[in-house]
């Protein structure tokens, strides 16, 4: 879009902010056992308050309740509105149509905040009052360039009483051309998604020999040929005597924890959880960064004796891991 087109588009969408989606709308189905059971089945929710009438009757609730996470579901418009098979178009659909017409074809629910003010029971009506509360400034996201639309819905029952509230944030985005092309290329073969391996070690002129020994199950330590000083990580020159001559010794894999940290957020696909990274003081004198495995994070402490094992951790990676000795 040209800048003029963009500002015309933005004016159009901003006109929707503050608008109600329509008059308060009673859900197409009142709260009912069939929809409750379908939801409980698919989410694997075995809470007997949702599906076991006898248990529920004897409980503090004195009868079946709907899973609270169904609150917004009672108000969903269903198939005809989603497919555009209906002459009726609500204000929200109208807004989404404007995004689609301007190339923002991607749609993704990104956040919900839901408050449950009372539990719903079979037979309850759910009436939704929805306002388009906010449209963000244009954002660059991992999925593409787009806008976040935020709606706020207040839910009431057949008595006009408040039963809950939901903030729903949706991203409308222009799918990035690269990701569409990549996925369409991949889809021909229906390639299975593969879980990632560890980040692969960069192997250069000065350190490939060390990783190659790891691949063969041996942890080596570089040694200066002139003065005998050990060093790690591998590098061309001795820090003590500046000699460029070196060989190596094989580590006993005995040592202790010099320092450590637990990486708790975010979790990395392909890495273990919990993920403990230790600085290991080897008996030979050098230190090495490696994972501490085989023990709970609470049990690790500075000075803990550990014993290493060079082992395969995934299809592409061999690493030294350290276990409590």
């Amino acid at each position, binding site marked *: 879009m040209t800048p003029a087109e963009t500002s015309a588009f933005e004016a159009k969408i901003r006109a929707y902010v503050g608008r109600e989606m329509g008059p308060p709308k009673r859900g197409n189905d009142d709260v009912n056992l069939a*929809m409750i059971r*379908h*939801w409980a*089945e*698919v*989410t*694997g*929710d*075995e*809470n*007997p*308050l949702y599906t076991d009438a006898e*248990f529920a009757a004897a*409980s*503090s609730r004195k009868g079946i309740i709907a*899973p*609270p*996470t*169904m609150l*917004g*579901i009672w108000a*969903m*418009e269903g*198939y005809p509105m*989603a*497919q555009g098979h209906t002459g009726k178009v609500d204000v929200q659909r109208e807004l989404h149509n404007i995004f689609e017409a301007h190339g923002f*074809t*991607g*749609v*993704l*629910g*990104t*956040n*919900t*905040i*839901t*408050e*449950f003010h009372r*539990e719903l029971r079979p037979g309850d009506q759910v009436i939704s009052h929805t306002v388009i509360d906010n449209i963000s400034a244009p954002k660059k996201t991992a*999925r593409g360039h787009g806008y976040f639309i935020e709606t706020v819905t207040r839910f009431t029952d057949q008595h006009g009483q408040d039963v809950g509230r939901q903030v729903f944030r949706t991203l409308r*985005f222009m*799918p*990035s051309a690269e*990701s*569409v092309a990549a*996925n369409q290329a*991949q*889809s021909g073969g229906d390639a*299975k*998604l*593969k*879980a*990632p391996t560890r980040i692969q070690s960069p192997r250069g002129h000065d350190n490939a020999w060390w990783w190659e020994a790891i691949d063969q199950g041996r942890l080596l330590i570089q040694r200066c040929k002139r003065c005998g000083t050990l060093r790690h990580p591998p590098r061309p020159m001795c820090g003590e005597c500046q000699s460029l001559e070196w060989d190596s010794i094989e580590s006993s894999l005995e040592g202790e924890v010099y320092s450590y940290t637990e990486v708790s*957020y*975010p*979790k*990395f*696909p*392909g890495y273990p*959880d919990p993920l403990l990274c230790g600085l290991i003081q080897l008996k030979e004198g050098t230190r090495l960064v490696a994972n501490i495995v085989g023990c709970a994070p609470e049990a690790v402490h500075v000075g803990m004796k550990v014993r290493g094992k060079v082992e395969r951790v995934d299809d592409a990676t061999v690493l030294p891991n350290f276990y409590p000795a």
Partner: protein
Amino acid sequence: MNRTTRTFGSVTLGEKLPPLKIDVTAGLIVGGALASRDFTPVHHDKAAAQATGLPDIFMNILTSNGLMGRYVTDWTGPEAALKSIEVKLGAPNVPGMVMTITGEVTAKDDAAGTVIVSVSGDNNVWGTHMAGKVCVALPKES
């Protein structure tokens, strides 16, 4: 699920919930979308999902929300009452992935009798799918 319910007093701050692994299948994604009355094509039509730059259909937020609620009430037991759920989605869940849900008690409100469980759902390919906070009221005594 365990049919006895944890009491407010029995829960400790920092307590970790047992992890739950969810196989993300096409059936779960389509079933969850339909059970939540969400017929947006990207949740059942692979070509529509690919046109938006993803390799396959992906889980709708209502299903993620439902799984998060279930995860916490599986742990509390049935007599607890959900008060609120905040969910923020990250990487999509697509068929073939495995999502591991973990949680930790991060707040306790003595006056209200509620606890907050911070929950994370991480898939094995792209990482964090969902992160959020679930507020749940627990009975004072069983």
